[in-house]
């Protein structure tokens, strides 16, 4: 039988705080529904599985609900069953309050599985909700009990240890399950990792990934070199999976279905290598080469500032003005001042004081001594401040003149 396997839809997510992105996520869901419909016609898809994180949070807004209903209604109208399990976002794993999926379930639009299963002939689809790794023993035990004699397809929202993900998520460790603890004789329709068609090396498990771009590592990436943009990689594919499950057993064939039409998400890497602001701004000209229309653009400025220059001097925010027509330009700075081995904050206040003092006091050594002394004074260490300042002024602790007699 042919099964469409989705996960990590994250309806309602306002990525980067942008309304447009929330819309993008909804549209991606609806496009996926269209594709499933088409595939049903073409190939005869029987069943739709959504293994977790359908909604971005346990209390979606009404408009988000409406989108979900729209989509699932269409599937129901086409006569397909939709089985949904809970992920880590659309319910609290500790205190599962009434989660939004049960709402959908009660309306009959979807079937909510949590430690439950549905048999389709010899194919049994088992669904378990997302659990923290500390509680996996219960999950694994339940699986063994739930599994039948035929073909078992397990819907599970966890990170299976060993899956070679490319970009890490903060909660990876929290929802991990080691592959060797899971029963081998089942196909795992997994969710939680957002990379499309990510396969586990040993376990029969493939992640469909999210329907929309989730992380900036998935963006189309360019780097600004010598004043020109060079593409490093394209935007990662997004979509879902088509599972071909043989009732007689054997491996499940997995076909990735790519969704087209998402927004362009572009990352531009700009290096600073200690060149003065003027040189830097010259090179920025190359940025204008790309078409940024409606794209979400992230500019990463990385490197070392020039000697004696501060962040303000470079006017990094003016980068935004070079990128036209984008949905949003986000400039991220990872620059350090030259020679500062320690992250002694040389911006802001210290810079201010240094600038002002340098104007009045010509001597750099003295200015540095004054700064250090000010620090010591605010810590209450007046004597040490005296010593530092004396040294800065070129007065050693030599009482040598006394010894000259």
């Amino acid at each position: 039988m042919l099964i469409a396997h989705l996960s990590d839809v994250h309806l309602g997510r306002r990525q980067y705080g942008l309304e447009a992105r929330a819309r993008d996520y909804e549209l991606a869901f609806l496009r996926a529904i269209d594709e499933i419909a088409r595939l049903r016609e073409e190939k005869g898809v029987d069943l739709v599985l959504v293994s977790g994180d359908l909604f971005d949070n346990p209390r979606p807004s009404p408009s988000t609900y409406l989108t979900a209903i729209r989509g699932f209604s269409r599937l129901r109208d086409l006569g397909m069953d939709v089985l949904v399990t809970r992920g880590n976002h659309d319910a609290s794993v500790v205190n599962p309050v009434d989660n939004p999926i049960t709402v959908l379930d009660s309306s009959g639009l979807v079937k909510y599985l949590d430690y439950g299963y549905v048999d389709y002939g010899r194919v049994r689809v088992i669904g378990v909700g997302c659990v923290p790794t500390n509680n996996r023993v219960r999950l694994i035990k339940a699986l063994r009990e739930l599994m039948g004699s035929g073909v078992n397809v397990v819907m599970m929202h966890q990170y299976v240890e060993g899956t070679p993900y490319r970009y890490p998520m903060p909660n990876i460790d929290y929802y991990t399950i080691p592959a060797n603890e899971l029963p081998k004789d089942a196909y795992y329709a997994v969710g939680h990792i957002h990379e499309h068609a990510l396969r586990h090396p040993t376990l029969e498990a493939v992640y469909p990934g999210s329907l929309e771009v989730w992380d900036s590592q998935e963006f189309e990436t360019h780097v600004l070199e010598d004043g020109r943009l060079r593409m490093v990689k394209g935007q990662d594919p997004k979509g879902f999976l088509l599972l071909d499950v043989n009732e007689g057993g054997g491996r499940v064939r997995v076909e990735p279905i790519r969704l087209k039409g998402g927004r362009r998400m572009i990352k531009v890497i700009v290096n600073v290598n200690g060149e003065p602001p003027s040189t830097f701004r010259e090179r920025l000209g190359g940025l204008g080469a790309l078409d940024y229309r409606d794209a979400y653009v992230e500019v990463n400025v990385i490197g070392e500032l020039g000697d004696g220059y501060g962040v303000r001097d470079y006017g990094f925010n003016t980068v935004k003005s070079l990128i036209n027509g984008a949905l949003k330009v986000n400039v991220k700075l990872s620059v350090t001042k030259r020679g500062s081995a320690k992250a002694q904050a040389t911006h802001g206040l210290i810079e201010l004081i240094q600038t002002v003092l340098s104007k009045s006091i010509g001597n750099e050594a003295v200015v540095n001594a004054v700064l250090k002394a000010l620090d010591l004074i605010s810590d209450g260490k007046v004597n040490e401040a005296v010593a530092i300042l004396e040294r800065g002024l070129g007065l050693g602790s030599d009482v040598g003149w006394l010894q000259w007699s």
Partner: protein
Amino acid sequence: MASVELIEIENVRSVRKASIRLSSGVNFIYGLNGAGKTTILDSVAIALYGTDWLKRKRIRLSDLVTMGASVGVVRLLVNVNGRRYTIQRAFSREKVIETQTYVMSEDGVRVAERDREVTRWVTENLGVDVELFNLLYARQGELRDILEVNRREEFKLDKLLKIDSMDKLQTEVLKSIEKRLEGEAKALEAAIRENNGERERIERKLNEARARAKELEALISKLSEELSSKEAELSRLRDEERRLIGVRERFNAINDELSRLKDELNRINAEVKELEAKVKEREALKARAREIEDKLKASRGLRDELSRLEELVNELGGRVRELEYKESMIKELERQRSDLDRQIRELEDELEELRRIREGRRGLEERIREVTSRLRELDELKARRTSLMEELNHINEELNILKQSNEPVCPVCKRPLNPDDRERIIKENTERVRRIKEELSVINSRLRDYDNLKEVEEDLRGKLAQVKVAEERIPTLESRLRELRGRLTELNGELEAIRGEVRELARLREEYNSANAKLRQLRDLLKSLEGLQEEYLRINAELAKNPEAELSSLLSNRSRIEARISELEDEAKRLSGELARLNSIEELINKVENEVKELRARLEQGKGSLNQLISSIGEMENEAKRIGELISRRSERLRFIRGKLQEVTKLAAAIEDAKPALRRALLNAINEELRDTFKVLRHKESLVEIYVTEDYEVMVKRSDGRELPVNMLSMGERNLVALVLRFALSKALLGDIPIMLLDEPTEHLDSEHRRRVSNWLRDLSEVVDTLIVTSHVDAFENTADNVIRVEVVNPRGESIAYNA
């Protein structure tokens, strides 16, 4: 660039255990009231600033640790410029557990240990101290505190700007440096003055010394000249002396030779005389030799005679000895005889005596009998006396009794007595007493002789004993006498016989004597002949010698010697003339030597003084140089210090100037930020701008140009302004904001503005490395990049926190 990547909490307030990953962008902590959102934020603050932060917020450790647990731990994993560090703080209810409080690098090295060091490390590496952190962590309800920018202690801008530190720098630090420098300058000046004085003194002394040195040099050269001339003279004199001494030696040698030669000469002369005499003698000797020869011839016959006589003499001698022996025997016998005679006579006398004594024996015995009878008489008298005395005593006793007692009683029978009887008895007894006493006195007078008689008796008895002894001896003596007499007769017979023999031998003696005499004669003769023999031999020996040759050699010797002697005498005479001069020269030499010695001494002295002077001059010169150097060094240092003093003054002025400039710069920066930000967040269209005045008042400008102080706004508006102000201040002060913690920032805001704020926070997250926002409203859930849920898990109220 510094960001927090992970928060781990154990046993802090309601959170038993939590492990929360943070990402860049907005980290949203969602949870119901009391779930523990604030605990998570506080844990971050505690992890970063430890007890410093707790003290400021007046939070007690005992309130932090979960009930029922003993130890609470907070842990942060931070990324500082690409390097990861773990910051851990552990504490019990009472105190921080210092051994479990540290910062550890990726490779396990603890780069900071203990509460204070960890705080210091955080301050350095994050670039934010605990005061500034107050800006970055807006606790629930404290958001608006920032609006009272100058009144609230923590937000005093001057403090944040370190302007108060600058004041302290001027008043305390710079002043102390100034004081020290001035002190040093003064001291240097004084020292330099002193040094100058010293230098002058030394130079004066130097000049004096130099003048004196010159004088000494002149004196020395003069003395040297004198000395050399005198020394020349001395050497000349000495040469002369040496020569003369040589002369004297020669003279002495000559004299010695002369005396030796003269002695030799005398000896030779004596020998010569001897030899000449000897030559003369020879003749005489010859004659004598001849004489002797004749005499010796006659000697031979005598020898025979001699031997004959010797024989005779021997023979006779023996007989004569016999004779003499006999004569002596005779003498002996005669002596014996006389001795015997004497003995006999003695014995006869003794015998007579003894006989006489024996005669007296009878008389003696009579006398003894007599004496003995008398003694017996006397003994009887004694006895009588004794009884008489007894009787006397007895009577006296009776008398006493009678006299004494009044009642007369018979002393014998104790019968009473009448007075007459008593009288009678008394008279009788008294008469008896008288009679007895008479008799007693007679007896006593007779007894007076008793002792004498006793002696006499003894004496007589003694004598009698003697007599008895004598009697016994007499026969012994008589027999002895007979014996002696017999012996005497024998002796006489012997004597007679020997006498007869003697008479015979007497004749032989005469013969013997004459032969002896002759013999003696002959012997003498022979002796003299022997003497002659000896003489003869001697003379011959003498004659054998030949003294003449000897004599001639001696004579030639003598003449040689005489010649030599005269030679030497001539020379001696010559030399002695010269020698006279020697003495005078010696005197002269002494004189000159003394002069030279004196000059030398004076010269030495002068040189010594000069050397001393030179060395002391050298010392003084060194000293002067040293002082000069010292002065120049000190002057240099003084110049340096004065320069520094000026610098310090300039620095103080510069800092003074800096203060207002700093304030202004800060205000400008703040207001710039405020302008930028407020554009985005503007609450009402009617509000155009917010800014901070020079007096640190926060003002809001309305679209109609009116300016309002911020406390005229609504609570919600004020929250907004406060948010923005915090951000602006932090940005202005820090430049890069590593972390910002906002606890319920959307309080009092409607949903629209919550939305706006959440959007603005997104922009904020681009400037802030780590932004953590909490709310019990889930407005941020959809916009956050990282959602963290905090939920109560059991009736005890314990909660866990996890990444959604």
